[in-house]
């Protein structure tokens, strides 16, 4: 018999999981890039990887304090954004797409290769960097919470930091997007030549947007590794596409969209994987092995997202009025 309580309680845990927060941050960054500025960044996985490795390497190889490691990650992603943006932001939008997808793969392969195994841990990645962050935890040791949301002090600490960051950055994004800066950014999305003709340095604004959204992704990458270890295989192009799926699910040019999109994505994913795994166990799906079942959840999530995009193409929080005019 299927243990529905277990499936639902696992799914409910994703509501506040650090992974959900991490993806929400990355999607919020993409909202700045794609939703507001119209930049096609297909390398968000690269920015996340820089957050993960920048943080872990700073601590493991150089013994940096937490704040130093965070700054290294942010610095690395600013440099990465400059390298991506300087040659491409003057060109047509598709150049950025190609360059970002390639650059993110180069980063991942660099982290995977054995050449730098001493620093990057190559394919097996890095662990043992959590001490500094755990030391900052003001919560006394123990177990807290109720029902499915019962965690130890460290797990609560990650959740509190992760979701605080989500709230702060969502607020910041909301503030800047309703400012004159946001007006220029949205104007660039609509027609950058028109904005140029009004005396705005479009190139500089696009660069600012690329850096800012990239830093969001990098912070997401740091939150992502706090409950697990750093594994290069996590930073494949499919990661970027999951973040895009979250963004489109929630609404590309919205603040709440990426956050709620991430929550829905992870709750659904957990629900489907729990359901499929137990259904196979219970012999409901005799044609399927456990391994195949693990893959099936992505197919089901894909279908769920397709349905939402077909029947609500502006995303959950998007404005229907805007969509009526999309070419």
């Amino acid at each position: 018999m299927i243990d529905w309580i277990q499936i639902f309680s696992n799914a409910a845990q994703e509501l506040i999981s650090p992974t959900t927060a991490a993806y929400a941050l990355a999607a919020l960054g993409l909202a700045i890039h794609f939703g507001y500025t119209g930049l096609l960044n297909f390398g968000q996985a690269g920015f996340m990887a820089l957050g993960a490795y920048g943080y872990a390497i700073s601590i493991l190889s150089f013994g940096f304090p937490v704040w130093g490691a965070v700054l290294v990650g942010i610095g690395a992603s600013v440099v990465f954004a400059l390298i991506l943006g300087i040659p491409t932001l003057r060109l047509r939008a598709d150049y950025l797409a190609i360059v970002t997808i390639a650059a993110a793969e180069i980063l991942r392969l660099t982290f995977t290769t054995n050449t730098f195994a001493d620093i990057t841990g190559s394919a097996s990645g890095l662990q043992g960097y959590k001490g500094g962050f755990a030391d900052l935890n003001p919560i006394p040791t123990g177990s807290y919470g109720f029902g499915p949301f019962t965690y130890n002090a460290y797990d609560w600490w990650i959740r509190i930091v992760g979701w605080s960051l989500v709230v702060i950055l969502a607020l910041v994004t909301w503030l800047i997007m309703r400012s004159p800066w946001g007006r220029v950014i949205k104007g660039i999305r609509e027609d950058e030549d028109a904005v140029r003709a009004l005396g705005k340095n479009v190139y500089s604004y696009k660069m600012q947007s690329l850096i800012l959204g990239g830093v969001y992704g990098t912070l997401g990458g740091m939150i992502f590794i706090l409950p697990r270890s750093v594994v290069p295989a996590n930073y494949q192009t499919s990661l970027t596409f999951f973040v895009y799926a979250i963004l489109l699910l929630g609404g590309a040019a919205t603040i709440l969209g990426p956050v709620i999109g991430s929550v829905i994505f992870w709750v659904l994913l957990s629900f489907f994987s729990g359901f499929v795994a137990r259904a196979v166990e219970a012999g409901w799906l005799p044609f399927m092995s456990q391994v195949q079942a693990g893959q099936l959840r992505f197919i089901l999530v894909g279908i769920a997202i397709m349905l939402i995009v077909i029947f609500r193409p502006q995303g959950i929080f998007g404005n229907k009025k805007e969509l009526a005019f999309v070419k």
Partner: protein
Amino acid sequence: MSSNVTPTSTPVKTTGLHVGDAGPGCRKVDPILIADNVRRTFGGLTAVDVEHVEVPRGAITALIGPNGAGKTTLFNLLTGFDKPDSGKWEFDGRSLAHVPAYRVARMGLIRTFQLTKSLALLTVLDNMKLGAKGQIGENLFRSFLPFLWRKQDDEIEAKALEILARFKLDTKKDDYAASLSGGQRKLLEMARALMSDPTLVMLDEPMAGVNPALTQSLLDHVLDLKSKGMTVLFVEHDMHMVRHIADWVIVMAEGKIVAEGDPHLVMQDPAVIDAYLGAHHDADIGTTDTEHVEVLKELIDDEQ
């Protein structure tokens, strides 16, 4: 300029703009824009090859010529949207060569586009506010501190509403620009250009595709720019409009300036007829043909 000129059906023409004989590249008493040897080729095609041209300050100058004459390309070159193979040009005494488009705009030279560029998913009011120069809140580090820019933004909004009212777009202020008609978008683009108090406004075919009901209002707005002390350079195919509002006409054909002069006199210049006839001869598409025939008829009407 006298400030009491109001848009009327018989606009006050500005005369005495040139020095010596009117002709291609002739000097002006007070030029605002001067271009020298500006050339732009696309592969084997020379789109623009202007030896010398001056645009008179404080007047309305029409740039006419058959399709493909290079008018839009010249606009792009002058405003930094395209780079010439060679040449130099200056605006208000400052060289514009190698100056990027956004800096050209900041200097007070604002242009509009042949294909309207309204920002579709911005409201009409946001379109307008984007046009204002020197906004404090356009800096990322100040943008999330509204108290730094709120006051200026309110002033910009008041100005935008005032201009929108003049252009009879104020009732649309909260609508997306995408919901406007083609003519209203042309109006919006012109209105937006005024937000930065430009000294020279360059309009590329402001009347193209505009519903006749709006043409008169557009004409009045162009005349109004002059009465407010701005210089206007516009591309137009409609000879009636050119004759009606232009103080000076520059004629381009095959990339070159072939004639210049007072709107009534220049139409009698054989070079102008040749320009349109020449283009007519090797024109390749039907629509261009009929348009040129139309223009020719008007030119001939005018001579009689």
